[in-house]
């Protein structure tokens, strides 16, 4: 009887442990109460996230609508602006590009040495004509271009000032020889066919070289004289000649020499 009882206890324990282990393997150790509690919490979290998302979606929809409305207002305002200028957006773009090209050209001419610049006078003047035509356009008054056009006009004015000196820079020079060999004096130099072919134009050389000629009767070998372009004597040159002859006359009357 005792043995039977012992056997029954062992069998019972085995049965209990079998039931327990069978439940462990199939249910992955989640008790129903825990599952229920977690599901309640997860459902609340999901619902809360859905609300947040819904709020964001409607906010985004409102923002999209605001942006579309702003876009429309902007386009309308832009049409009004272009209407004031009497141009299209394409004209504005073309003007912008033309300004950029012109700025590049003016800049490159400004970087040129005087001699090179003088060699490109015609092209520089063409740029000036183009700039004038652009300045005449209403678009030159638009804020986008106004200061750029002004800056270009200033840069071009500098070019013009430099070009104005081209004639002077193109002036020929003459290196004075010796009296013994070349018979060089202002009168004789002026008489040379390659200079003026006219001795009476000597005051032109005198006035152009006043910085180095103090007395027209006295020039020195190896002096380099500027030879202005041929033409009638200017007022200043005539006055210089008159003063010279008057002084000569005075000296001959008084019999003094210098």
């Amino acid at each position: 009887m005792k043995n039977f009882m012992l056997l029954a206890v062992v069998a019972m324990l085995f049965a209990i442990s079998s039931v327990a282990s069978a439940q462990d393997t199939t249910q992955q150790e989640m008790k129903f109460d825990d599952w229920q509690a977690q599901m309640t919490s997860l459902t609340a979290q999901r619902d809360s996230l859905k609300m947040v998302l819904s709020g964001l979606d409607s906010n985004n929809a409102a923002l999209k609508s605001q942006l579309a409305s702003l876009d429309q207002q902007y386009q309308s305002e832009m049409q009004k602006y272009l209407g004031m200028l009497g141009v299209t957006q394409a004209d504005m773009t073309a003007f912008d590009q033309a300004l950029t090209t012109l700025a590049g050209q003016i800049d490159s001419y400004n970087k040129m040495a005087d001699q090179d610049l003088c060699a490109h006078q015609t092209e520089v003047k063409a740029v000036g004509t183009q700039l004038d035509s652009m300045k005449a356009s209403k678009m030159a008054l638009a804020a986008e271009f106004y200061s750029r056009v002004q800056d270009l006009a200033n840069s071009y004015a500098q070019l013009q000032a430099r070009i104005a000196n081209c004639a002077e820079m193109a002036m020929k020079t003459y290196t004075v020889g010796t009296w013994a060999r070349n018979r060089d004096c202002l009168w004789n130099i002026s008489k040379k066919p390659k200079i003026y072919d006219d001795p009476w134009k000597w005051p032109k050389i005198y006035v152009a070289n006043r910085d180095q000629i103090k007395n027209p009767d006295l020039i020195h070998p190896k002096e380099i004289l500027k030879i202005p372009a041929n033409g009638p004597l200017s007022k200043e040159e005539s006055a210089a000649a008159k003063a010279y002859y008057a002084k000569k006359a005075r000296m001959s009357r008084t019999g003094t020499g210098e």
Partner: protein
Amino acid sequence: MRAVLGLMVASLIIAGCTKYADKDQVQQMTDMKNQISSLQQQIQTAQQQNSDLKKQISDKQDQMKKLQDNEQFLQQKLQAAHPDTTQH
């Protein structure tokens, strides 16, 4: 002897009656977690979109302000260039 037998039967009942989540319930929970994860991603995307839209609106407002300033500038310059005409 009876007491021992009773104890055994009681312990067997207790062990066998604890309720666990079944496979469908576990799957339901997994689906719920996936749904939450997907919602979190959607929120992130929506927040990014929100921020982008706000920036676009701010940029457009700046553009509008600049355009209005340009209009005013042009009006003044046109007025100065042609004082007889009035711009509307």
